[in-house]
């Protein structure tokens, strides 16, 4: 019984490391979603900049 408790705590320390594909994807997709928002804003600004030189 006692050994089990100890084991679960040292597992807790290791949770920072990614062990499942699911966690890996929720991690990467999270970053990607943030990037997407940045892309959408950035693209709009960039388009303005790019076409800023056109006369019409």
């Amino acid at each position, binding site marked *: 019984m006692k050994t089990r408790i100890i084991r679960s705590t040292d597992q807790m320390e290791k949770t920072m490391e990614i062990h499942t594909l*699911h966690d890996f*994807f*929720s991690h990467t*997709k*999270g970053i*990607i*979603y943030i990037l997407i928002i940045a892309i*959408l804003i950035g693209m*709009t600004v960039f388009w303005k900049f790019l076409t800023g030189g056109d006369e019409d």
Partner: protein
Amino acid sequence: MSDTTAHVGSPRYSAFNVIAGIILALGLVVTVLRFSGGLSSVTNLDDYNPWGIWIGFDLMVGVALAAGGYVTSAAVYIFGMKKFHSAVRPAVLTGFLGYTLVVIALHYDVGRPWRLPYPFIMQQGTTSLLFEVAACVALYLTVLFLEFSPAALEWLGLERARNWAVKLTLVLTIFGVILSTLHQSSLGALFLIAPSKLHPLWYSPFIPLYFFVSSVIAGLSMVICESSMSYKYFKDKMDDTHMKEKESVTLGFGKAASLVLAGYFVIKVIGIASDNNWSLLATGYGAWYLVELLGFVALPCFLYAVGVREKNITLIKWTAAWTVLGIVVNRLNVSWIAFNYHLPSSERYFPHIAEIVISIFLVTVGILIFRYIVTRMPILYEDPDYPQH
């Protein structure tokens, strides 16, 4: 004009009002039941069949049929088909109402509707395709609202705000296309996670692509249908430009729909080949699949082509209605008919009458709001104070 005033009082028109009234009353009753007795009191949903027609029809079909908004505004503002300009506003309005109704339907279906923003404000389930759908639908609803706003602002006479909204047209159109591409396809991709539940003829790694391409077909066909319906009931609201462009819109969109249907047919067949599902075509589900593929894809593709060649507007209109029906069939196939195909029939789902009531109720609400808006706002005509371009 005098023609319609007579029309409003005519028995057919009031018959519509009476039926609409009955449907609204029934809908309200079911609404009360749903929010007092839970889903089990008004639906046939169970643990094997968590999604019924509120998802399969109201969400899946609703979103597909509301695709006219992005398809038309992309055609006009991005692909430069200026001659379809008069079709943009009705299509955007239909799209906006469609998405609004989808979101309302979701409030009936999910357990705790007030938590619908939770995926954005509480915890992001970024691995879920539903998260993607939810994000895109929420954003696209905003985009549609902004795209629609000039008409409302013209009506309200708020010139400054209207001009500001019009300036956003291009950005909004592009955002609309991006968001639509994403969530139209992701609605199909929702089923990628359940290969063991969806019949292999409908389950395909290409299902997101199928949903996207067929949404374009749905959008084009809906614009044709919607334009002929509007002509029938709101003729007096149409201005000369709209009348003049109406025919070219029908022909042009019919041609486009025929072409996209041809492409859709091809990728569907390639899908069968790549999964080697030929032998399944000989089964019962296979026969039904062939009905969908030949009857609702190949046939309208051909009929559209004939209609366009012969400039047969009536044929194109009926083909459009048939194609829309085909989209309904396809979405219901994926979400209901071919879903849980492995279960014995006693464990399969069939909608409860109250579920159907709510679906009809929401469609009716949509038609009524559409009528309210087109009879007041500059949708089918240009406001003389605000000429377009």
